[in-house]
């Protein structure tokens, strides 16, 4: 039971931490942790197939896409 609460705390805290960073690459990395925590929470909420998809997309593909965008534009927030 305690695992779900730890995961919820990780999700909310990493979301808040990602939005206050000035360096956008740090934002990308912390958003990856948010997607991974969300995938593990889906697994604990008995949704195994959704958890697999979210683990691939939320922790690898979407941060990768955002990282490519950051590399092609400006890294620091003005």
């Amino acid at each position, binding site marked *: *039971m*305690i695992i*779900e*609460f730890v995961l*919820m705390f990780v*999700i*909310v805290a990493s*979301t*808040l931490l*990602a*939005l206050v960073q000035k360096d*956008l690459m740090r*934002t990308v990395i912390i*958003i990856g942790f*948010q*997607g991974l925590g*969300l995938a593990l*929470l*889906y697994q*604990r*909420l*008995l*949704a*195994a*197939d*959704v958890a697999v*998809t*979210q683990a691939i*997309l*939320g922790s690898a*593909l*979407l941060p990768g*896409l*955002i990282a*490519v*965008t*950051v590399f*092609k*534009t*400006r890294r620091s*927030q*003005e």
Partner: protein
Amino acid sequence: MNGSEVQFWSFVTAALLMIIGIYAIIFMDNIIKKIIGVMLIGDGVNLVLITEGFKPGGIVPIISEKLYNQSPGIFQEFADQASYSLPFALVLTNIVIGASTLAVLLGITIKLYQHYNSLSVHEIFKEEKI
């Protein structure tokens, strides 16, 4: 701490994700952070649907071989115990559509940066006004 408490706090987490996402869309200056806000709202909606299908103390809705060989009335027992699996199909579709939407938004962002040479919404609208 029991299962329904997990369900309640999971709803609270989804609500917080949506609130943070709306805040990021409205108040953040950087466009990439606004796009991350869009992503967070989608995650919140997905978490609401998944939590709606959660059954405290239930099982994952997959019939294993061990479960199948146990007893004759196994499908009734399975339907009683398994978590509700209609939201999973919705959420799977929504995750993939969210990824495609995010890719399109990021492509538009790159073109916007090449045109205005800035990612700040303040800068872009200031330049357009002059």
